[in-house]
């Protein structure tokens, strides 16, 4: 063989090649992470609102939409952004940050609306962006932090290790504070 390498070098090269191939084979042989079966997974949709990431269970979500043509409803609390007509159905859109009485740290653009449904209540949550669907191990969800006292803590399922706030849609939609039922008194 006409080669610039000495025999020793050639053998060395071969050994290196084998090592690379072996390593590659090992990596390929590894079962794909997603295929791992975990029993306590919940599937959530994540969305970003004023720089924070929130998540709701996919089973609570009806659909996600671009938010346009939202109509303000006069004489309603600040957390009611307005109403939209989704295929003729009137749906109330809610700003969860205002519902939680959180300070408006960053300006929201409200590009999207996440339509959630529980029982006979269907509402839309405003979102700046919807980042996607992912699975979360239930055991990694921590109960809400002590700093999130008051109103907000009540409506959380918990917070993940990477600081995603998981909302308890059922609790939120069934809470009396969400209802607007006001008369004009004489």
């Amino acid at each position: 063989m006409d080669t610039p390498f000495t025999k020793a070098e050639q053998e060395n090269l071969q050994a290196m090649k084998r090592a690379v191939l072996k390593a590659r084979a090992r990596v390929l042989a590894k079962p794909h992470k997603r295929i791992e079966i975990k029993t306590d997974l919940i599937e959530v949709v994540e969305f970003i609102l004023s720089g924070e990431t929130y998540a709701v269970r996919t089973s609570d979500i009806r659909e996600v939409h671009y938010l346009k043509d939202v109509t303000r409803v006069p004489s309603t609390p600040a957390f009611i952004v307005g109403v939209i007509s989704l295929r003729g159905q009137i749906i109330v859109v809610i700003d969860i940050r205002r519902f939680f009485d959180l300070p408006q740290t960053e300006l929201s653009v409200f590009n999207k609306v996440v339509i959630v449904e529980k029982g006979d209540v269907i509402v839309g949550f405003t979102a700046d962006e919807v980042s996607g669907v992912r699975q979360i191990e239930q055991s990694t969800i921590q109960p809400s932090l002590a700093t999130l006292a008051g109103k907000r803590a009540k409506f959380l399922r918990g917070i993940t290790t990477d600081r995603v706030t998981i909302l308890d849609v059922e609790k939120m939609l069934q809470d009396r504070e969400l209802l607007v039922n006001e008369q004009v008194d004489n």
Partner: protein
Amino acid sequence: MTSSEEAFLKKLRAAFVGEAHEQIERISSGLSQLTSIADELARQVIIENTFRELHNMKGSARAVNLLTLEAVCQLLEDVFAELKREERKVTPRLMDVLHESVDSVSGVLTKLEADESFQESADLEGVLERLQKNLEISDKKSADHVRSEQSHSEPSRTEPSRSEQSRSEESRLEQSRSEQEQSIVELSRTETNEKQKSPDEKEESAESILNSFAFDPTWQESTTQGALQDALKTIPQGSPDSLLPGSHASSGLFSTPPQSFTTASTIDSTRESIRIPAARLDELLMRAEDMLSLKIMSRQHNHDLNNVGFKFDHYTRDLSKIYADVRAARQLIDRDLASVEELFIESVLGKVLEFLDLQQQQLSALSAQLTTLKTGSLNDYRVASSTVDTFLENTKKLLMMPASTMLELMPKLVRDLARELGKEIDLTISGSAIQLDKRVLAQVKDPLVHILRNSIDHGMEKPEARAESGKSPRGTLTISVLQQEGNTVEIVVTDDGAGINIERVKEIAVKNNLIDRQRADAMTDEEAIPLIFQSSFSTSSTISEISGRGLGLAIAKENIEHLGGRLIVESRRGLGTTFRIKLPVTVATFRGVLIKCSDEILIVPTSDMERLVKVKKEQVKTSDSGQTIEVDGQEVPFLRLNHVLELPTSPANSTHHLVMVLRHSEAKCAFEIDDVLEEQEILVKKLAKPLVRVRNVAGVTVLGSGKPSAILNVSDLLKSATKMAALKVRPETDKTPAAVKRILVVDDTITARILMKNILESAGYLIKTANDGAEALKLLEKEQFDLLVTDIEMPKMNGIELTAAVRERGQSVPIILVTSMTDQHFREKGTEAGADAFFVKSSFDQNNLLDVIKRLI
């Protein structure tokens, strides 16, 4: 049983429960009619029909294995068989027994609905026993008969033996039904054969019936279709009533009295189903098919438009090409005209002329095409509007139901309430065959129930009182539905009770600060009666969330007005009261004006808009009580609409105000708006949850653009405006030292105390706080307070104990109880102890609290 059979049985049970609810309602109203109708012939028809309903229900109960229920139905059926043969008489005692068992069956059905695996026997066993016992006592004549029945039916309830007569009755029934409900008849026939079999065999064949159903996938469809066809088939034999969409198939065979409640559907949306004649569906399908041509037409027009667009693109491309040539030529000429060859100029000119010639032709072709498109689209619009209008009209008709579907619940309600209050009342219902939109019926039910309750509770006197004033001890309550001209219906509720006590109405109105004494004395009776509709009018002395705030009739009136209706009351002292509910036959579209305010399009009902005027800035008068303008020689309060609606301020016009003058009842107010767009037909949609009721907003509609738009509630708006005007005046008077009121706040949590203190102090009250009831009592000993606000749940001495202790000392200071619990029990206890108002923390709204405080001190 295999799991699929079980699943099937579940499905079958669900269907049974739905049907049985309807049957029970008809049975129940049949029972009520039995006591109220004197005509013997009509009574016989009712007995016959009720007997039949019971029989049907019994059969269905057996099919779904609800054996105790079957036994109850059997007993009741026997009673009616005896009534038919006149072996038994209708006595009040018997009626009570029957009503009671029908009510229990109804209760069991509700439980079955909620829980599929619910065991009916547990609840019904007792009913069955009581029924057997009561029937024996209530009528000795047939006691033997019942007893023999009982002894037979106890050991094997699957096959209760019957007297010969009822057996023949049975076979006659089977025959008469056989043409009607084919699949069900199959079941019944098998049953008839089974009567000779032993219980064991029967068990088996019952299963085989279920199996045969389970393996017939078309079963469900065939029954519903069958029922529909049968409903139509039986029309010739029935009375005109059975033509109605709601009438039940089985009642069509037998002539029904004109006012019997034989309609099938209930308005309860949880198990909503309606029967619709096939003819109406056919018509609807035809209209729907019409819409296909709209689709095809619009596709054609889209194609045509694309064509025009393509030609236009071509034209612009040619134009830009020629333009490039011309520009190049011009540049040459500009630089040095002399050096440009004539030949070149000629060639450019030639190209331009050629282009112009060609375009001349093409443009006129394009123009012709556009004209065609324009005509076409106008035509489209005409076709679309007529198709859509007819379609809408027909669809609305589908939802038309006889008023009886709603009214059939009333006899029971009246009977129960009358008995509860110790009054004797005969209810007459007329015009229940008149048809209204199902949604109107559903929404008018609650107001109507409220008015009935009001009449029975406040209008009707007790039998003794009636006798004293020379009336028959039994009161008469009438509900008549009257068809009025122009798509409206009037429901008239008349009682022959004591009438409205005007003096008392005035007294309460004065006490609640609705009017002053002087005004009250000057008021005529006609003027004073509408006071009962005021939202803060209440005869009850405590304030709770709804009942005690006297919102009942106010809400009834509001709900009726939301439907586009009106509620009018007439009363004559000693002779009775009449409530007239005027309603549109169908959910009304109304004319509305689209206005612009703070970048939102809002809608105002045209009927409430009195004027629309431009007013110069200098015409606005400002005084202590706010701003006013003069409209038609009258001073009218003037406000900015966005202020009243709590919407952001928009830039104002510099020289003029655009003003709409709204009017509702007696109130009138002028609002500044940004713009007026147009007037159009508006279809109201209810606000969606969680918006249950919003101040100043009546509902929403979806505009042509697909964007929703809020419809203003003018009645609210005028109230809000008055309130705002009043608030502007108040601060000056409130600041006078004499007006400072002292409030004691009692709560064991520091947060709640501080929160409350802040709210109340910023409202101008002087606040002291206490940790618990004991501490509060000490403070009350030393100091004077105008009001006490206390939490209920507290250590040492809770709020209720505190209230009781304060009252025990004879102190009359108003007390408001605050709690996080909505438990009715607490409310009752609190009221009992002497609290004046009750507040639930979760619905805590500071304005609400301040309002109540204002009312109390």
